[in-house]
């Protein structure tokens, strides 16, 4: 091997070791957010250097707007992933519930009632997912994959393929997605509020402990009296409701919903969650990490256009940067844990 490369590598190792020491000394390594923060900073600094206008208010508002809708879904996905289950149906649930909301407000229902009903519909779908997974002892990956296809199909059949548009506005719709000064949208506040509540619930309540236990070691959890199935079922319901909230927020902004709405969101939410340091295998993770993960996805989307990435390399870059962020995340955490 090239001696220079050996040198460079050993230099990298010393850096990593020094980093690890810092991390260990301060006891940070207990927190999954550390790796996510490193990935976040790497992407942030990278784009600040290469993309003009990246550090403008408008650009940050744009990142926040993308991250908010994705992040709302991802917070639910995170809770559920920590509890040891996947939900691939979030994209379809997002579509179905925003379509339901659209149909109800078009039919003249009061917006608040329509909002509540659409969330209740999502909750029912989530409960059904959870029921099939826990009662049938089936892998959630397959159950929710089926659920994703089923609800997408229902959506297509009900609408006959046409988008539903709604011209009206209301204070509820403004509260969900109204424009704030600086190009921000109300959705960002919802996202931060939900993430804050989820963090408190996850780290400071018995239910949070139960979520970690259910995903980490279900047998032990059961032995300790944790109702694992119940915890997972609640997780499925929460995930579906949050997906619905994201969908209705998007509808409130655009006033239209097409039957393909939300397609691909499930994978992006998983990407944000894993980039944020939550383990695919469950039992470990953090909502704050997911917030950072969603912001990374937003930054990548926004930053690449601002950096002038050629149109057709754009998607490839998104994939690359996401994998890089995860690698940085894991490296930091492993060296910290070593």
């Amino acid at each position, binding site marked *: 091997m090239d001696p220079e490369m050996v040198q460079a590598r050993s230099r990298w190792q010393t850096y990593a070791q020094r980093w690890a020491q810092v991390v260990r000394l301060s006891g940070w390594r207990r927190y999954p957010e550390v790796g996510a923060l490193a990935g976040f900073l790497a992407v942030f600094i990278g784009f600040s250097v290469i993309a003009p*206008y990246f550090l403008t208010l*408008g*650009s940050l508002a744009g990142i926040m*707007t993308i991250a908010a809708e994705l992040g709302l879904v991802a917070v639910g996905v995170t809770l559920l992933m920590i509890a040891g289950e996947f939900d691939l149906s979030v994209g379809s649930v997002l579509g179905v519930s925003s379509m339901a909301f659209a149909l109800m407000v078009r039919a003249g229902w009061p917006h608040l009632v329509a909002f509540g009903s659409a969330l209740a519909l999502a909750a029912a779908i989530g409960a059904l997912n959870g029921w099939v997974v826990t009662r049938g002892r089936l892998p959630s990956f397959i159950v929710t994959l089926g659920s994703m296809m089923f609800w997408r199909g229902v959506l297509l059949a009900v609408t006959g393929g046409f988008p539903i548009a709604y011209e009206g506005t209301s204070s509820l719709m403004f509260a969900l997605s109204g424009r704030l000064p600086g190009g921000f949208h109300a959705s960002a506040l919802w996202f931060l509020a939900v993430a804050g509540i989820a963090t408190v619930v996850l780290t400071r309540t018995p239910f949070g402990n139960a979520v970690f236990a259910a995903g980490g070691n279900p047998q032990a959890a059961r032995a300790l009296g944790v109702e694992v199935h119940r915890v997972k079922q609640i997780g499925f319901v929460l995930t579906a409701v949050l997906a619905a909230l994201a969908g209705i927020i998007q509808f409130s902004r655009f006033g239209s919903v*097409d039957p393909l709405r939300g397609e*691909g969101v499930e994978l992006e939410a998983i990407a944000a969650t894993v980039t944020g340091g939550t383990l695919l295998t469950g039992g470990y993770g953090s909502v704050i990490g997911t917030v950072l993960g969603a912001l990374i996805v937003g930054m990548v989307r*926004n930053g690449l256009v601002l950096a002038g990435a050629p149109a057709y390399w754009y998607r490839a870059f998104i994939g690359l940067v996401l994998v890089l962020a995860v690698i940085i995340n894991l490296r930091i955490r492993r060296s910290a844990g070593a």
Partner: protein
Amino acid sequence: MIRHAHRWILILLALALLAGACAPATPAPTPVQKEFTFYIVSHGGPADPFWGVVLKGMNDAAKVYPVEAKYFGPEKFSIQELVNLLNSAIAAKPDGLAVTITDPKALDEPLRRAIQQGIPVVAINVADPRPEGERIPYMFYIGMDEYLGGVRAAQRMLAVRTPKRAVCAIHEVGHVGLEARCQGFLDEMSKKNVPVEKLDIGTDPTKAVEALKAYFTRNPDTDALLTLGPLGTDPAVKFLKEDNLVGKVLHGTFDLHPGTLSAIKEGVTLFAIDQQQYLQGYMAITWLYLYKKYGLRPANDVLTGPGFVDKDNVGLVEELIKQGIR
């Protein structure tokens, strides 16, 4: 009298029973004998608002002619899925096929096989761009000249003023038809030395708006924007309104839906290029029927577009859109 009444009641009852028994056996219109079965295989699922209109055209034609017509399209854009659907359609041995030639290479083998088996094939919506001898030997093409559509879009904008910079926002990257629209626009703009490029915005409206915002932030001199369908129009209109660019940016788009129409009425969007895709479903069935029945066929491709919808004719078109015909 009472006895009479009883008798009448009995007679009425008997009649009612008789009528009830007979009703299912003699429905009002006698069922039409279906002479032929035609399939439309398309890259667009019935989910796409655009393809919903083609589907309606197909269904309406199938009501006029004694044929059975079925529509197949993948829910999510996928060439592989399109080829699979086409193969199953051919296996069912229909009397005629109308296919979008979304990927000429991938569809070449199955379509040549179908033609060899004697199944009449017409291309709809997207033609095979290769020259006569090389292309898939389908009978003719029913649809818009996509490239010409892009060229006309650029010409229409250039007639208003010469933009300082133009961008073509594409929501389904790799789709031959959308690429051709974009290319026509790019070529015509380049001829007038207008800097112009493509931008991948995807199908999610929130992300599309942010992609446009980011592009216009990086290139603030951009003053012409072409979108290629409703999934691009909605976010573009939202973006132009939110960033106060209405009137400063020439916005043209393709394909009609209610959002496009109100944008034209409000003056946000200059024009929409319509390809009257109802005809693509309707005429495909009509021509296939006339060909199977009498051996009649048009001498040339049947161009259903590009046609313009702008402030002048938007009211007229609006009514038809409500009916799902445009």
